[in-house]
């Protein structure tokens, strides 16, 4: 009897708790992905003086469900000369990687699945793995267009990861911890304490543009350049395998927005530290900030034409990399010169 109790308390209950936590994160993320696709079509529709989807359900609210069902009932086609195992593995890798990163994202004070010390390194590691899904898809499809799209995408993601790494380092220098909750708490005290409104503002811009490139969004959507590559690395995919790529890509967009909100916009903190603002709970502020950054993603897509490939590489390697490297040295020098180095006990 005691053994049963111990088993229950040591193994079954914690496992159930963690599985429940995972569901509490994954279900809202997938729902947001579904409604992000609707929001994208609606917002771009309004920007181009159209109506966007408005037929399925009130205001087109059931459109994502209709789209999902349609994809679900399509036939899964496997190209005859493809490498079957890797062909199936690629969308799974993309989808899983876009979800496991959410484990360390803090949604509110203490509201985090895994509050680990190396939180941002974990996020950085996961986002640097995103290349594999795309490379595997491009190679396993055994098709020229898919392969070209995969190569473009991989080169682009590897290039912009470098500047993202340096941007993260500048923030970490100012905070003195890799823990995401600590990074948010370091920005407490109102909107003027947020990193976006400090000398780190240029890094905010660099991070946002790099996030666009990292998620293969317009104006850097060369891997999917319809005019040249049909659709890039996912040409040969259909039905649910395609849907998993699609879900992974949009979940990555939301993840990048969450990272932006945590690094620069104060995470779950309200913009003002007085009455009507402090009544709203932290997770809602966090969701609002993510929605704001996502709106910027969509706005950029509706506004700018696609970059040429050599311009994209030049921006990454010759503009962002030196700028962010210089900002790392500037920040470190500033902190040392004015004796503002954060105490080491943080993490």
């Amino acid at each position, binding site marked *: 009897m005691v053994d049963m109790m111990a088993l229950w308390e040591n*193994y079954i209950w914690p496992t159930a708790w963690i599985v429940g936590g995972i569901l509490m994160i994954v279900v809202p993320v997938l729902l947001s992905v579904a409604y992000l696709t609707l929001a994208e079509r609606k917002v771009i529709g309004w920007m181009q003086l159209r109506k966007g989807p408005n037929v399925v359900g009130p205001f087109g609210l059931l459109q994502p469900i209709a789209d999902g069902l349609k994809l679900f009932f399509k036939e899964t086609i496997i190209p005859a000369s493809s*490498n079957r195992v*890797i062909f199936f593995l690629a969308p799974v890798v993309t989808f899983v990687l876009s979800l496991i990163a959410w484990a360390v994202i803090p949604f509110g004070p203490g509201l985090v699945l895994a509050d*680990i*010390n*190396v939180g941002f*390194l*974990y996020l*950085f*590691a996961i986002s*640097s*793995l995103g*290349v*594999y899904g795309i*490379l*595997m898809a491009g*190679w396993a499809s055994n098709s020229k267009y898919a*392969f070209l799209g995969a*190569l473009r995408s*991989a080169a682009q993601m*590897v290039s912009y*990861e470098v500047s993202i790494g340096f941007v993260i380092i500048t923030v970490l220098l100012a905070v003195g911890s*890799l823990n995401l909750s600590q990074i948010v708490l370091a920005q407490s005290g109102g909107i003027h304490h947020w990193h976006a409104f400090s000398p780190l503002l240029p890094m905010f811009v660099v991070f946002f543009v790099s996030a666009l490139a990292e998620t293969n969004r317009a104006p850097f959507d060369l891997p999917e350049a319809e005019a040249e590559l049909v659709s890039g690395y996912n040409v040969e995919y259909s039905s649910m395998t395609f849907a998993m790529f699609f879900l992974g890509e949009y979940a990555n967009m939301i993840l990048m927005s969450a990272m932006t909100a945590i690094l620069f916009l104060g995470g779950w903190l309200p913009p003002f530290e007085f009455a009507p603002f402090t009544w709203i709970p932290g997770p809602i502020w966090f969701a609002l900030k993510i929605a704001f950054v996502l709106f910027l993603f969509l706005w950029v897509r509706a506004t700018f034409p696609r970059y040429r490939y*050599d311009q994209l590489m*030049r921006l990454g390697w010759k503009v962002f990399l030196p700028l962010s490297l210089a900002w790392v040295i500037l920040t470190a020098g500033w902190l040392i010169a004015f004796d503002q180095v954060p105490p*080491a006990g943080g*993490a």
Partner: protein
Amino acid sequence: MIIQALAFYLFAFVAIAAGVMVVTARNPVHSVLFLILAFFNSAALFVLMGAEFLAMILVVVYVGAVAVLFLFVVMMLDINFVEMRQGFLQYLPVGGLIGIILLAELVLIVGTWAVSPEAATLVTAPIPPPDQASNIHALGRLIYTHYVYLFQASGMVLLVAMMGAIVLTLRHREGVRRQKIEQQLARKAEDTIEVVKVPSGSGI
């Protein structure tokens, strides 16, 4: 804890199995993918030992950067897999012999390993106990504070290696037309576009 032990054996087994598959897989792309799996499981073993920083760096550097380059190169290779396998049996005795010699040497080294009793007193930079500083702070203090000159020296070695690689592969080719970015950036709409009102029924 049973769970920790189970996790250790799982990760260790998958790491070794993936290592074996790296060598035996017929397709080089599969080899690289198994190599990535092996890296992952080694990172998981680091996490089990409490070295979470090393685990993350292993994933970022080896899986996120080095293995991507491997994969890039291997995918672009145009080789005949069947032809590549032909000499396998012919080279097997030599390869096996080298493997056995290396194994014997390793066993000898590990078997006769001895740490000098004064080694603990010779440490110039004390390592703080794990409950006082996290992984990252302890490593940072060692690398960037106590051993900063050695760190800089290794940086110089890497820089020289990079310059060597560039010098070896750089070729100046004649007759290549390059993009002049300054010219492109300096172009204005007024310089290039002219709005002409064309009366109907006649050309410009």
